[in-house]
Each structure stands twice: as structure tokens, then as C-alpha cells.
């Protein structure tokens, strides 16, 4: 089903999408999208929404099982508290991606902004994975509690910029961040450390990269040819003693 979003107010567009999903449509194509907020939010069915144009903020929030494919760039706050499903962005994306994300996948081809993967979490089989192919801004993995972040630093529009910003992993206390080609340790937050991958890490990472490459028609060998490192939190409770010492 094709919906022309040219000049359509976000509430009307989202009502049309929800209506299409409710009536059993499983493939929805949105054309001429520009800035409409909340696309794909709270969708509970495994439908595929393909978007031409730049969707507005809060794409795929609370999404549970749908797939959203953005053919161009996307804006801020993608996948807030997303439960399952997938978001694929064929360009760059903005700040605060995957906020409190609990499951599913977010694959961004190019650069990402600040606070990516903030407070991602995981529980039992729910393990969110967010992969950014370009550079990232500051606070990558801020307050991360679980799940997986992968930063490639390969497909950037801004090659002069550093692969990642400052305060990398601030407040991180769970989950893992994989970084292709190493991290700039002077930009790490004090809550995290850098480690080599073990065999289990390599197997898991290969799986994530293979799926990412399928989405963007890339060669996983090229991505995996460079060494990856992992960033882990030093503590599960980095601020336990911040205001008063905790009893031992």
C-alpha cells in the first residue's frame, strides 16, 4: 500500500498508517515524507514500512515487531523504548537513538549524533543491537545498562571528524560496545575500559555484522577485516558512592 505523505499532518499520516496495519496490510510505502513525527510508533504487528524522504523525530518509538526502512536520512530519537523489530536508515541519523531500547535492531548506515544507545537495556532473550556505520558524537552508550552497540566509523560524510566523541560510555553499567579499529582512550569516560574480543564475542559480532551487511548490500569481510575492540563497564553500579558511601 502506498501513501503519499506530501504536506500531510503527522497525526493524519499516522492515523492512515495505523488504519492500514489494522486492516491487515503488511507492506506500507510512504512517499514524500518530510518531518512527520512518530512514524511507526507502537506498532505491534510484523509489517514493513518503507519511507522515502526524511521522517521526523521519534520514529519507531515503542515499536514491537515492525520493520521501518528509511531510504534517506533520519532525525532524532529513533527507537525510544523499542521492544522488537527493526529500523534501517540508509543515511545518517541524529541524537538520542535507541533510548531505553529493550529489543530489536537499529541499523544506521552513516553518522550518528550525540547520546546514541543511551540507557539501552536487556533482559533474558531481549537483547537490543544498534549498529552505526559512520562516526558518532559524544556520550556514545551513555548510562547503557544492557544490549549491544557497534560503531564502525567507516561510512561517514565527515572524514575529518574523529570516529567518536568525548565521554564515551559515561555512566555505562551493563551491555557491550564493539568498536572497529579501536577507541581513543583519552575520550573514554572513567566508568569504562577497553578489552580484546574473545571467541564468543567474535561469533556474536559476526552475526550482527552479517545481518547489517544484508540490509545495506555490503561485504561483511571488508568490515570484519579490521580488528574490533570491546568497551565494557568497570562496575555495575558506578554511582553507588556518589552521594554517600554504600555499606559493604
Amino acid at each position, binding site marked *: 500500500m502506498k501513501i503519499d505523505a506530501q504536506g500531510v499532518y*503527522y497525526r493524519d499520516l499516522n492515523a492512515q498508517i495505523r488504519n492500514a496495519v489494522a486492516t491487515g496490510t503488511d507492506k506500507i510505502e510512504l512517499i514524500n515524507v*518530510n*518531518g512527520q*513525527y512518530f512514524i511507526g510508533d507502537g506498532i505491534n504487528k510484523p509489517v514493513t514500512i518503507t519511507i522515502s*524522504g*526524511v521522517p*521526523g*523525530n521519534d520514529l519507531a518509538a515503542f515499536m514491537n515487531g515492525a520493520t521501518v526502512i528509511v531510504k534517506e*536520512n533520519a*532525525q*532524532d530519537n529513533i527507537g525510544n523504548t523499542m521492544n522488537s523489530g527493526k529500523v534501517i536508515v540508509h543515511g*545518517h541519523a*541524529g*541524537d538520542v537513538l535507541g533510548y531505553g531500547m529493550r529489543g530489536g535492531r537499529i541499523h544506521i548506515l552513516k*553518522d550518528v*549524533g*550525540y547520546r546514541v544507545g543511551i540507557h539501552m537495556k536487556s533482559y533474558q532473550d531481549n537483547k537490543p543491537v544498534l549498529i552505526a556505520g559512520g562516526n558518532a*558524537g*559524544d*556520550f556514545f552508550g551513555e548510562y547503557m545498562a544492557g544490549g549491544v552497540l557497534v560503531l564502525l566509523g567507516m561510512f561517514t*560524510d*565527515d572524514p575529518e*571528524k574523529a570516529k567518536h*566523541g*568525548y*565521554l564515551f560510555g559515561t555512566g555505562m553499567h551493563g551491555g557491550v560496545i564493539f568498536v572497529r579499529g579501536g577507541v581513543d582512550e*583519552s575520550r573514554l569516560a572513567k566508568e569504562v575500559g577497553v578489552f580484546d574480543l574473545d571467541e564468543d564475542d567474535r561469533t556474536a559480532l559476526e552475526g550482527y555484522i552479517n545481518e547489517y551487511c544484508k540490509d545495506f548490500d555490503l561485504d561483511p569481510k571488508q568490515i570484519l577485516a579490521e580488528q574490533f575492540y570491546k568497551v565494557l563497564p568497570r562496575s555495575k553500579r558506578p554511582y553507588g558512592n556518589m552521594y554517600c558511601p554504600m555499606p559493604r
Partner: protein
Amino acid sequence: MKPQPTHIFEKDISNCGLTGFVSKKGTRVGGEVIIKSISLMHDRGNGLGGGFGAYGIYPDYRDFYAFHLMYENSMAQQLTEEYLEANFYIEQQEDIPTRRIKEIANPPVFKRYFAKPLQTDEYKEAVEYQNMTDEDVIVRHVMAINHEIDGAFVVSSGKNMGAFKGVGFPEEIADFFRLEEYSGHIWTAHNRFPTNTPGWWGGAHPFTLLDWSIVHNGEISSYGINKRYLEMYGYLCTMLTDTEVVAYMLDLLIRKHGLTPQLACTALAPPFWSLIDQLPDDERELYTAIRQVYGSALLNGPFAILFASNQGLIGLNDRVKLRPLVCAEFEDFVYMASEESAIREICPNPTRIWSPRGGEPVIAMVEGNV
């Protein structure tokens, strides 16, 4: 008993929006373009403030200071006009053309005056004995009108530019001020969601002084420190809103103290000490000096601002980027906005589109004498 909902799920999702662009070659663009861009971000505001900064709109009066005045009562107008006549040669004065529309409630009166300072005794004293420039004299008059005349506010006071602002959504304010009838080479626009301060006509953005104009998304939590610092230099804050300090601070840093726009931005959003400590000697000394001298100019709190002058357009974020800012280039145009879609709405295929890092100014100056 039926359970009661714990929340009202219909929320006002506003968060302020800004957009602006400059033609570096000075190509003039009609007001309908900026209106289209800011209208796309309609939902970032809540109808309590909209405004526009426009440059290059008064070429016939380019040598005169264009005073946009807002009057809340006729006494304010009478006193201000007496004040202006005593201190200025007024080449032209007129109502700012407006269109009465039903969305705009109780608008104040708007007038504009194209004027030059008169050679009064007071002017001669200021220039010859107090080492003041024409701009200093104008600043003093603006402060005097805002501070001393009840119900009169200078909306803008630069040459060949003007600010148009009020209570309403920006597209309504544009309609009210008939902005599509103007054309200029730099435009900024703001959609307001007032959080801490009143949504009144003078509190809409942009905030201006001379030809500086500021639109801002965020909140300046260092307002008290900044305001007291500015008071030492004769700037009086009268608009009841944090953003006002940014306009005066840039006037102080760039025009009075001669800082480059780049260094002025560093003073507003300097690197953290922990980063400064890692820098090479000369940079460390520079940033240390800026932070020591201009500690009271530092803007704390989240912000994305656009500031414009006849020389160009500059975008700046707070150091940890707590508000969005996206920039783009196409031919000699540079665009800056809260959302990429607001740029795409008026420039569908920019050659470059990027988000600057926190504290990293994007400086787009006009080329030569536009």
C-alpha cells in the same frame, strides 16, 4: 470501580524550533521561504511566541538605523516619539504594515523609524569626550527607551534589518506582519514554547540589539550571572527572558571587545577544563585565558542558537549538545535548523548536510559588501 487513567496521554509535545539561512552572495529571498521552513516545525511551539529576523530588507534606508518599536499604550508612543525627535534626525516614520487576522489577539501597536543620531550637546559629549561610537550611542538610547518608558520596547535597532515577533504561531505572526512582502539575504525564524518566562509580545524571539539578532532553543540557567556581568557594561535586561543576555553578550564580546565570532563562541561555550588540559600549549593558554577573562559570559544550560548580523549567520550549540542543530549547504546558501526536514522543505537536495558538535560554531559570513 473503573480504574482511572494515571496520565493524561494527550501531551503538549512542544520544544521550541528555529531555522535560518544566509545567501553569502547577498541574493535576496522572499519571506515566504523562511515561513515555509518554520511552519514545518509548527508543533515545536505552542502558539505563545513566533518571530523572524530579516536582513537586507530596507535597502532604500540602508544608512539609517531602522527602529522597530512596540507600544503597549498611547502614552508610551507619545513619550518615545518625543524622545526620538529630541535625539534623532528621522528620515521616515510609519506604521509597520500589519494584517488584522483572527488568530492574533490584542496586538500592540508597531511603528518603525529610519533615523540617525542628531548632533545634540549630549551626542557631542558622548562622542568627543566619552570616546563613544554611533553604535554605543544607539545602544544607550535603546536601553533608555526599554528601561525608562513604560510600555515601549525596541524590537530591533540595526541598519537594513528588522525583527518581527509576537504572541502566536510563527506562521500567524508572519501573516500578521505581511512578511511575504519583504525580501532579504539573511532570515531567521523561531517557534516558541515558553517554559520559564511569560509568553508575551516582547518575549518572543528574536532578541536584538543594533543589527544582532538571536533566536534560541533551550534555557540559559546562567542568566543571573550573565545579566549582572552585562549590567556592569550598561546593558539592562528588560524583556523578562533568558535569551536577551545572548544578544547583549555578543554585542559586548564582538563589537566592544573585538573578539572574532569564533572566539566569542568559545567564550559562550568553552571546552571543559579536562579537555583544555589535554591540548597543546598555545591552545591551552588561549582557552584558559578566555575562560578566566570571560567566566561570567559562559552560557550554562542547554541551547541551540542562531545569531545573525548584516555580516552573516552563526549557529552554536551548548557544549554537550542538549538541543538539536542541523546545518546544510547549497550553492552560496547555508541553512541551519532544529530539524533536517525544515531545511529540506526549502532546499530539497543540499550538497552537504551535517550536525555540528557541541560548542563548535558554524560560521557563514557574507562575501564582501552585500
